[in-house]
């Protein structure tokens, strides 16, 4: 809200600068975003305008007097309200839902939407320009001066915070104001010149012919003040915040009135605002009040006092305020307190921490809260008011008594950090991508209609295109990042992400599973040179090697296996399922040509996606030391030529070798694989194994090693039809 500083000073007795005032208000909970050096359009007036940002619970700060009252409490200086008394003859007449007075009648049909409707009749009105002082103030506050009638209602709105509306009384059919729900499809032309179609949820002001205003939002053109208007009815009502908000939102209209009603306007302000209107009309000689003000309402709008225990204030804030000090601070905000007569139970010892004062512990105050402060409902709300007046910056700083000891990460949290460290150490950059994906991603990934990943949660209103689903796989985010890099002409991509996927369940919230995903593509050449090409490509074996290292550094005891598999998104000949022990943890492979094309990548990227929760369930936090072998190993190499097919995988050759190796075979590994049609013949490959023989207790004899080699070669020949060469 725009708060012209000279206007504010009408109500408070202070001589601090606008800048200082801005600081005081900001630290007191009413943020002043900036100070505008304003000059009127006619160049006759200047002012400093504080531009405030009001939190949604403080509708009472949406007026000059509201701000002034708060400032006076923070500065501990005098605050004076303007004269809001009703001139003689205007003293109000009250009724429950219907009131007739002279040729005016008010009926409230919907007391929930409109608990109070007050009105004032003015006659002998001369519609003309407002006096300059008023026009300037409205202009500084951001309201366009229109004519004296509209301007008076706006002036009082800014001054007191009560939205008002002026009707041309002669244009009201039978002078009858009816507050009711609109009929479905009812039409109203609002003063902004837009024809509105209404629903049964909208509250309207109507005359006997039809709707004449949208309650609390905007008036209609049919009954608005015009130049020849002489007879005016000023509406000053209290409308239900929720109904006003719904109507304003549905119709996409926001007005100064709806903005305030949505945040709650003091129901006891209606008559005071009319009194103020009457006083200003008198002052600017624009007409005269006839008859008593009309006040239709069903309740008294009186609030019960709230009990405050001064010891509780200190208990919650960590202060040592006396009861008297607390009473004074509340009084500055216009909250009156009186001691409660009934003796109270003393609280338990702990509840007096940190400033035990047994005498204060028995005291209780009954605090009367004005209806302008609906945000103060409970003891704790009063304590907050005391904290604000006392000053947040004045509250001391202490640390909680430590009763819980050291903070520790859980096993899962520690292991997850280790996964990130290992992946980064292996050269993959840690990435963070959105949790959403597009339905198109599922197509890009070439997923069949029945695979699990197709079953994704859908956002009702997505924020961006292709982000309408909650991800069921990390691959779209990683492959999109790869595509982004390629478009930036970065063709070496190595990224991983640790993030959640969302699996819909039959009932309740989805299952959120933590996954590890990675993508790599191109060459690792950035940090090496003169190395043979196969060591530079971030290919399947590069990524697989990292996964093996990962399992090793997680001290996984169970066997980690890579078995050839098929996966919709992966190259049929270059995909593997990874399992640990008996559990499947995920997939690794080169993306299929279709996926490569869909993501517009220049090379077949390799990807991996693991279920981190399963993987980590096999991990250990600590490594276990194993003693070094005391005796030397005997080494032998073995060259095999076998068919280059599905039966003769490296894993199979190793398995057969190990089965046949006996107790002395400590380790077997593959160190060379090649295909050479001329030397080996069509469909054959050469695989070289390196074997080491060792026994924990004794050195195997040459004969024992030879015997084992014999068994191995025999088994390889028989089971796998291998040509075997040893040396």
């Amino acid at each position, binding site marked *: 809200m725009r708060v012209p500083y000279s206007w504010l000073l009408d109500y408070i007795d202070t001589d601090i600068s606008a800048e200082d005032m801005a600081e005081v208000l900001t630290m007191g909970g009413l943020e002043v975003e900036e100070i505008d050096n304003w000059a009127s359009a006619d160049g006759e007036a200047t002012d400093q305008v504080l531009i405030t940002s009001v*939190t949604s619970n403080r509708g009472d700060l949406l007026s000059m007097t509201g701000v002034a009252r708060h400032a006076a409490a923070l500065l501990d200086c005098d605050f004076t309200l303007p004269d809001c008394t009703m001139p003689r003859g205007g003293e109000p007449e009250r009724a429950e839902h219907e009131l007739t007075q002279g040729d005016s009648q008010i009926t409230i049909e919907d007391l929930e939407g409109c608990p109070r409707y007050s009105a004032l009749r003015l006659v002998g009105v001369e519609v003309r320009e407002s006096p300059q002082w008023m026009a300037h103030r409205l202009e500084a506050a951001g309201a366009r001066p229109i004519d004296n009638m509209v301007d008076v209602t706006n002036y009082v709105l800014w001054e007191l915070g009560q939205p008002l509306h002026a009707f041309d009384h002669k244009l009201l059919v039978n002078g009858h104001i009816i507050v009711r729900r609109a009929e479905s499809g009812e039409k109203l032309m609002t003063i902004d010149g837009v024809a509105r179609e209404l629903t049964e949820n909208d509250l309207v002001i109507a005359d006997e012919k039809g709707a004449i205003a949208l309650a609390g939002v905007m008036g209609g053109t049919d009954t608005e003040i015009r130049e020849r208007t002489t007879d005016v009815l000023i509406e000053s009502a209290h409308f239900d915040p929720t109904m006003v908000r719904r109507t304003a939102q549905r119709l996409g209209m926001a007005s100064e009135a709806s903005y305030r009603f949505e945040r709650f306007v003091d129901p006891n302000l209606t008559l005071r605002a009319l009194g103020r209107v009457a006083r200003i009309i008198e002052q600017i000689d624009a007409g005269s009040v006839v008859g008593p003000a009309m006040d239709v309402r069903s309740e008294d709008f009186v609030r019960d006092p709230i009990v405050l225990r001064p010891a509780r204030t200190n*208990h919650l804030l960590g202060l040592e305020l006396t009861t008297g000090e607390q009473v004074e601070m509340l009084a500055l905000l216009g909250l009156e307190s009186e001691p409660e007569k009934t003796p109270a139970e003393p609280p338990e010892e702990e509840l007096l921490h940190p400033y035990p004062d047994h005498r204060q512990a028995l005291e209780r105050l009954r605090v009367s809260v004005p209806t302008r402060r609906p945000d103060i409902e409970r003891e704790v709300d009063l304590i907050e008011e005391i904290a604000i007046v006392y000053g947040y910056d004045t509250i*001391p700083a202490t640390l909680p*008594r430590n009763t819980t000891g050291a*903070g520790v990460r859980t096993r899962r949290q520690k292991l997850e950090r280790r996964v990130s460290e290992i992946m980064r150490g292996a050269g993959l950059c*840690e990435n*963070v991508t959105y949790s*959403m994906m597009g339905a198109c991603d599922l197509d890009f990934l070439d997923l069949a209609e029945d695979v699990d990943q197709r079953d994704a949660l859908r956002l009702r209103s997505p924020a961006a295109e292709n982000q309408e689903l909650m991800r069921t796989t990390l691959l779209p985010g990683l492959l999109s990042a790869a595509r982004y890099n390629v478009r930036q002409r970065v063709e070496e991509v190595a990224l991983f992400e640790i993030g959640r996927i969302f699996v819909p369940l039959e009932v309740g919230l989805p299952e959120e599973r933590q996954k590890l995903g990675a993508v790599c593509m191109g060459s690792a050449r950035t940090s090496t040179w003169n190395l043979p090409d196969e060591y530079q490509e971030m290919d399947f074996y590069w990524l697989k090697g990292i996964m093996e290292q990962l399992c090793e550094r997680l001290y996984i005891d169970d066997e980690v296996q890579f078995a050839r598999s098929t996966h919709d998104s992966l190259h049929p000949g270059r995909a593997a399922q990874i399992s640990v022990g008996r559990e499947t943890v995920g997939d690794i492979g080169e993306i299929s040509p279709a996926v490569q094309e869909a993501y517009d990548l220049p090379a077949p990227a390799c990807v991996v996606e693991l279920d981190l929760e399963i993987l980590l369930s096999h991990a250990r936090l600590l490594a276990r030391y194993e003693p070094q072998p005391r005796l030397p190993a005997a080494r032998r190499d073995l060259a095999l030529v076998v068919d280059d097919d599905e039966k003769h995988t490296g894993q199979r050759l190793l398995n057969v070798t190990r089965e046949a190796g006996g107790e002395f075979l400590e380790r077997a590994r593959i160190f060379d694989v090649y295909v050479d049609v001329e030397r080996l013949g069509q469909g054959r490959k050469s695989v070289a194994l390196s074997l080491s023989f060792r026994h924990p207790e004794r050195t195997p004899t040459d004969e024992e090693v030879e015997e084992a080699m014999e068994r191995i070669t025999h088994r390889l020949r028989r089971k796998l039809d291998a040509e075997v060469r040893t040396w």
Partner: protein
Amino acid sequence: MENRLKKMADAARSALRGASDLEELEETRIEYLGRSGILRELQQGIRDVAEELRPRVGKLINRTRQELEKIVEERRRELEEQQVYERAEENRIDVTLPGRSGYIAGRHPLMATLDDMLEIFLGLGYNIAEGPEVENYYYGFEALNYPPDHPAMDEQMTFYLGENTLLRSQTSTVQIRVMEQQKPPVRVVVPGRCFRRDTVDATHSHTFHQLEGLCVDEGITMADLKGTLIAFGRGMFGEDTRVRFRPDFFPFTEPSAEFAVSCFACRGEGENCRVCKNSGWIELGGAGMVDPNVLANVGYDTERYTGFAFGVGIERFTMNRHGIPDMRLLYSGDMRMLRQF
């Protein structure tokens, strides 16, 4: 005889010292000091010398031999050193060529910021809690004391998956889940992803990270909240950091505060500072005393227990401390950016 000896010694000295490699040195040594070398010849010639002079000449010959042998040793050492150097020179490498190693990547800047924050709170005795990103209405809003018609719940602000399921818009949701499962004392921090229906641009994102803190026990005060956040501010930004609190409003805390730290870029001076836009302060987040309604919702005795909670945004702070100009970069997977961390 003595003259011949002197002349020979002079010639030998310069020949030995002038030997340009080990081979030449050895040839020269044999020429003078060998079994049939010049010195030996002279020694044999001693018979021709007068008897009384013999001991003198003999001594002289011995001294000359010792001297020359010493020279040979010296020269040999010199030449050997030289040879090692020359061989090394032949085998030299260009030490200015780049090193060869695998690339070691750094922590994502968002994660690095969270790590730094978590270290501080672990030190203050907080455990780390986590909770679901997809929440229901109860945990998302109702249990946090949001009135039924609060604008934050609007479809314009919050992502909905169904009538009752939504993406959490703050990590505060985890407060409820933690307290439901645990009796006081509670001391946790909750790092996590949150979602709000914002249009993505340089300074906004529909996905963002927060760190939530919650401390509930007997006798927890607002002064404790201030002390904790000051400890956090100093731990993150240095001992001379000041922390500012001012009233704010959140449904789940009462009293509520916004908290800011003095700008780390200009040390709070607020002059020509892009980080704090010359205000001298950087707003970090919201905080307050846990509203008694929230404590009651999880079945805590609101008379016995009080607590505080706070939430810190991660993205903007991360951008500030690294000078990252565009929030979208954090989620882009841009290798050029990630390799800088």
